[in-house]
């Protein structure tokens, strides 16, 4: 792998940038792999990367029906945080956070993980109770998290309306300083480059059309480029997981919904932290390019169209202008939608299935991006060992039969 550095950049400039190598190959599928990952988004590529790096399993194919990193990896609002309420979720997201903290160096790819801190605002007494509960739990779980009052919030974000005149005045917030944002596309590309360099075949424009299952055990997949064998198959296909599961005769408690986001035109830097409000339903940060990146709510109906309802965008901007009246004259440049696979308890599924050797990693809802390295890391360990990693174990499909949900709806609200 060609190593990246500032020095290298200067060297390449002198040769007119004509000697940069491909960041990943475009290989022909082999007949058989040790492990197949279905889905070449951030989570799938991270799984392949850690399989190769941590477990020495390099005979791996990542099968992607479109282009790598072209799904939700390319469409999210890039927030990374780990201040989840329930122990199981907190363990998973904090595991991820720790990996984020060294990711650029590990991948030799600057994913621009910017720990500018995330505020989750409280606007009612109950919001504040929920915030205190979550922050106390975070603290005892070893996650950096604190409660701020309205004054503290105002100091961090002077441009926000923290006055009593607001319809739902800001009463305080939870604050996680280590949280932040990252450059979403770079995460997929960095993992792809790292996995490829370790021998993983990334097969783009390759669509899985079915699973080969023999005596209750998976032995490979059918694709539009022919059959490919493998005794271990991990499906990491986000919004398309339900469709894949159906091919394997497995049911998943998933619904795929539209989730929208939008950006303003680029502005000179004015907002340095990430601000989220579940109560008035809006969250916002400013990218290094200057765009205000704004997340909208999830639409209530099923949708694979990568579009949602306009009224959802209206409500989001109402919330943003309510919080930041000075943004009224700022202009919205672009909106788009992703497909999020949501679980009834707003937590993911990391699970073995009734088909031996076939695993699913899905159901991340609105919270998938931040989990990318952690999800890939524990899923790779699970695939390598054939049993779920302890951090992944509570997220098995069985919980929907026993009732042992990890209900992040309870106090964390939307799990962006």
């Amino acid at each position, binding site marked *: 792998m060609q190593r990246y550095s500032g020095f290298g950049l200067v060297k390449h400039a002198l040769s007119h940038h004509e000697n940069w190598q491909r960041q990943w190959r475009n290989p022909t599928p082999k007949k058989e792999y040790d492990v197949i990952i279905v889905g070449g988004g951030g989570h799938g590529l991270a799984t392949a990367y850690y399989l190769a790096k941590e477990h020495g399993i390099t005979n791996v194919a990542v099968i992607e029906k479109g282009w790598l990193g072209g799904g939700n990896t390319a469409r999210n609002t890039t927030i990374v945080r780990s201040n989840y309420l329930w122990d199981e979720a907190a363990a998973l997201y904090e595991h991820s956070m720790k990996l984020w903290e060294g990711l650029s160096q590990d991948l030799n790819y600057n994913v621009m993980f*910017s720990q500018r801190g995330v505020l989750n605002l409280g606007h009612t007494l109950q919001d504040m109770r929920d915030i205190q509960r979550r922050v106390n739990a975070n603290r005892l779980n070893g996650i950096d998290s604190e409660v701020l009052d309205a004054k503290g919030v105002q100091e961090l974000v002077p441009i926000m309306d923290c006055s009593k005149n607001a319809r739902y005045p800001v009463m305080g917030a939870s604050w996680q300083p280590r949280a932040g944002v990252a450059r979403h596309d770079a995460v997929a590309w960095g993992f792809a480059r790292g996995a490829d360099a370790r021998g993983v075949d990334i097969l783009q424009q390759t669509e899985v059309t079915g699973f080969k299952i023999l005596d209750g055990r998976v032995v490979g997949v059918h694709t539009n480029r022919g059959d490919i064998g493998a005794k271990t198959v991990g499906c990491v296909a986000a919004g398309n997981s339900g469709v894949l599961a159906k091919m394997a005769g497995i049911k998943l408690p998933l619904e795929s919904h539209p989730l929208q986001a939008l950006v303003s035109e680029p502005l000179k830097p004015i907002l340095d932290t990430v601000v989220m409000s579940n109560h008035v339903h809006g969250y916002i940060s400013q990218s290094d390019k200057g765009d205000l990146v704004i997340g909208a709510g999830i639409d209530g109906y099923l949708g694979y169209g990568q579009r949602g309802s306009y009224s959802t965008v209206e409500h989001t901007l109402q919330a943003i202008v309510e919080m930041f009246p000075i943004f*009224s004259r700022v202009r919205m440049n672009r909106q788009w939608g992703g497909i999020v696979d949501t679980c009834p308890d707003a937590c993911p599924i990391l699970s073995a299935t009734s088909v031996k050797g076939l695993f699913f990693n899905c159901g991340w809802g609105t919270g998938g991006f931040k989990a990318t390295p952690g999800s890939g890391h524990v899923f790779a360990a699970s695939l390598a060992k054939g049993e779920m990693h302890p951090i992944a174990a509570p997220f098995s499909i069985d919980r929907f039969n*026993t009732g042992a949900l990890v209900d992040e709806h309870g106090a964390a609200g939307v799990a962006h």
Partner: protein
Amino acid sequence: MSQVNRLSQGGRIDRSHQLHFTFNGKPYVGYAGDTLASALLANGVDIVNRSFKYSRPRGIVAAGAEEPNAVVQLGASEAAQVPNVRATQQALYEGLTARSTNGWPNVQRDLMGMVGKLGGTFMPPGFYYKTFMAPASLWMTYEKYIRKGAGLGRSPAEPDPDIYDHLNQHCDVLVIGAGPAGLAAARTAARSGARVILCDEQETMGGSLLGSRERIDEAPAAKWVDRVLDELGSRDNVTLLPRTTANGYHDHNFVTLHERRTEHLADSAPTFGSRRQVRSRLHRVRARQVVLATGAHERPLVYANNDVPGNLLAGAVSTYIRRYGVVPGRKLVLSATNDHAYRAALDWHEAGREVVAIVDARANPKGDLVAKAQSLGIRIITQSAVIEAKGAERVSGARVAKIDAKLFSVIGKVEELACDTLASSGGYSPVIHLASHTGTRPTWRDDILGFVPGEVKGLTPAGGAHGIYALNDVIRDGAEAGVRATQAAGIDADTDTPALPKVAARQDGEACALYQVPHEKQTMRAPKQFVDLQNDVTAAGIELATREGFESIEHVKRYTAMGFGTDQGKLGNINGMAIAARCLKRSIPEVGTTVFRPNYTPVTFGAIVGRHCRDLFDPERYTALHQWHVEHGAEFEDVGQWKRPWYFPRTVNGKQESMHEAVARECLAVREGVGILDASTLGKIDIQGPDAREFLGRVYTNKWAKLAPGRVRYGLMCKDDGMLMDDGTTSCLGENHFLMTTTTGGAAGVLEWLELWHQTEWPELQVYFNSVTDHWATMTVTGPDARKLLAEVTDIDLDKEQFKFMDWREGTVAGVPARVFRISFTGELAFEINVQANYAMHVWKTLFEHGKKYDLTPYGTETMHVLRAEKGLIIVDQDTDGSVTPEDLGMQWAIGYDKPFSWIGKRALSRPDTRRTDRKQFVGLKPKDPKVVLEEGAQIVFDPKQSIPMVMVGHVTSSYYSPSLGHGFALAVVKGGHERMGDTVYLPMADGMVHEAEIVSPVFVDPKGERQHV
């Protein structure tokens, strides 16, 4: 201050009406009818901005929405600042103040430009992914400096003085674009009687016809525009919306139109008399049919240094000359691939300035316009192109050479022509943005070298947007689209194509395909050839991206940032795709299609928000007693959309009580005297029908079979997963008649829940539900003196044997018919008085008149919470969180295990997880230190000495200081708590304190419940 480039005549500007404006602090003069861009060009302003990444000087390129460079900061005052306004779309007005968005210290003498010149070569696409990684600790510092370069314009620092609104529109046919196709379509549709909306983004309707040299019906085209507009304007089935951009095309033909109502007049919306006007208005249009008549955007050619000021689109040159009377230079070289572009040279020539040469990529151009140029003696250099522009802050020359477009190489000697303006045209891209908003992929057409809209239900493209460019064809296509759309909208229209105006047919030669122009040097070594001017994306950048494995156009766009600017790649995307296709040795459609997202052009947040801001952001719901609460100094709590009195601080000796003092006083008043609460916000549902009782039995966990008229019962409502959803009392009014109460926040949800089960599962049950929340006002009179007070104003027999706890009675209170419910949420003697809300204030005030002698004390939600907590009564969503069953709450007494019907939630109580004995269970906590009030949300552990991460076993759900008990107390959920009474638990806090508390019964006051029965 002369307008050096202004012609003495021609154009649609009013030379008698001067407008003064400033740009970068310098005063200028333009005319009414100018855009900011045309006025800047008239004044000879070359550099309008600096580029984003390399800080190169940039000038105006286009005349419309596709302009990438002339992005300015508008506004004289701080509050009126608007970032990123496109000068080509901003009408000039008196006093307009604009600045460049980039450039330091200023746009003319820019120091960052030096950095761009020196550092540009080290900043290929994606360079930041490859560096700034070591040491890891420094990234946040690196980022701080990267961020300094971010952004174009700036946000205002003050709130917006202007207002905005929405108009919901419905029509049969929405025609987007009022050029020749749109006008023809709108006229056809309008004549059928259909409801028609015609919108156009420009100041004046007419589109390309406003600057056209063609004639319609043997008169200038603009005359025909006026005639059609007159006709449309006279019809009441037509709405004309100029200055209105269709920005988003959503599902089922829902289109958002952004109308700039006053942005062409002043920084801030003017007031007409006392009537305040909106700055802009968003039309939310539901159209049966849409005609897309958005025309086409010209593509520039990509050659070296094509970003130096003085490089313009050929069509823009024509527009500035013909429409604004501005010739943006002295000596023109035109580089073209098609006949249409020749108009720029002809117009330039007619304006009396020198056309140095037309450089045509075709070997043998022929067509009427070519012939015209030849007849005027203009030099035409064939099979050639401008391969490089010369000049730094303004074009000084053009390097021209013979090229082979197919082999992508320069095949002849380079000739340098002196000029100050370089116009180019590489063909036209239909404006298909809206059509692709709904997810429909556009289709590439080799014959027109552009994408046309894919098939979209309810949408008919017409004219340029349809890939049709000759004026007579455009008008016919528009008229036919009008017929088709009208018929599709279900309106009888003439099936014959309507009479069309006469347009002289013109012979055009065939265009040739050329996107990036080859240079003598290879792309990576040639001077920069810009594809996306706003984001400084070059042909070399795209080539590098493909070399590094970014092969889909989506990857290329993301790696290079092509198309991510505020122009969304209107000029650059097709050129970029063509370059990627060349590098990958594929065809353009194989590389991908181009997908656009709303908005077509950026829209102010304020316009999208409309009136839903400030005081109207969200409804405030008030009870009938709200005025009294305000007048008596209440502090309010937001509960859902309701404003509820939180507490009533008194002012004693000029000092206002703190919340703690007020609540302590209110609590004691209830425990020792009498207090009153406005409980009107509780949800109330009237239930009638012979099966009402059966229905209650199915949706509540407890039994309802035997509740007699006159009696009240508390009920718990679960979802089918067994988790508590709502609670409240329900009273039996008659054998077939019940009044259900719900929590304040749960009211709407519970009513819909009941309807859901009734309509979808049990339609055979004869029962009706109706909300009566707003009809009744509810006042809770509670405390030992409650009976004495109420007795003074009611005719109801309040004798404790006649009117028992959990009874209700009817009669009058203060002369008003009332239902009085003897239920208690405080543990004290309590009466809930319900009267029709119109009479509530009278009753409330009467109670206070009589209550003076009992020191009747109004209390709010905070005191209510303390009093109920002292009694161990839960608040749904505070003490529960969607993961708590009635059993977890210890409410087995309210569970009808043996009811015949398997009520909602019952089955779930026997699932493995709900049967666990170590579930978190509802208990009381008594802090060991009586002075301590535990923090709500504090986490509970059994072992305080363990290391982090700790095993948490529960948390505090409610916690207060009890004025009656004289110590703090709390409610909590604790694992296996019901079996742990008397155990000590620990609460490690953020400040390092570890509180100790004893697990106790959640009922702290009057455990036997005697007081409410007195």
